[in-house]
């Protein structure tokens, strides 16, 4: 399946765009998406942290992705 991953902040600079599409076999987890993205964009490993949000909530690496999910990369936040 194809998953669209949306990026904000420095994640946008790293993927050089607002979103990136990654191909995963069915029932793949956020952890696997993270691994795939880090291979494709080694700069992600330089960040202090990289969290994933699905449908506007933080998820852990064991979350199983669904093609309808809104998946967003959350690099270190710095509001306030």
């Amino acid at each position, binding site marked *: 399946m194809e998953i669209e991953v949306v990026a904000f902040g420095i994640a946008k600079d790293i993927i050089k765009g607002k979103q990136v599409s990654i191909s995963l076999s069915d029932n793949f987890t956020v952890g696997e998406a993270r691994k795939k993205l880090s291979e494709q964009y080694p700069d992600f490993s330089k960040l202090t942290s990289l969290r994933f*949000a699905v449908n506007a909530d933080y998820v852990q690496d064991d979350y199983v992705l669904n093609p309808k999910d809104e998946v967003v990369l959350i690099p270190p936040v*710095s509001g306030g």
Partner: protein
Amino acid sequence: MEDIFITNDRLDSKACTETVTYPGAGGIVVFVGTVRNQTKGKTVKHLEFESYEKMALKEMQKIADEATERWSLYKMVIHHRLGLVPIEEEAVVIACSSAHRKEAFEACQYAIDTLKETVPIWKKEVFEDGEVWVSAHP
């Protein structure tokens, strides 16, 4: 009562203070995050904020709910500005009221500390010679 808001316009800490004013309240604490003109000795021209807005509002709401419950607040307001914010202007305003001041201080500090950890808003410092996403790297 909670009032959660994200905007590209200027914030108004006075309006936030008025919103949390309440006949039963004895203490109001307001935190205003303003834009500093320097960081680690380097001159900052201005800041630029962006946000995953839908989730940011949700996380801000969680903070206000948690703080209101934990410290028995009357009201809490969290307003955050996005886009280009010049030096000295308000980037974030958090105001809350409670019967006694101790609760309002603790709740306000909890809210800004948690906002800086969980709310998906990103700040870029713009210098004369470049720009940096704050806290992105160790």
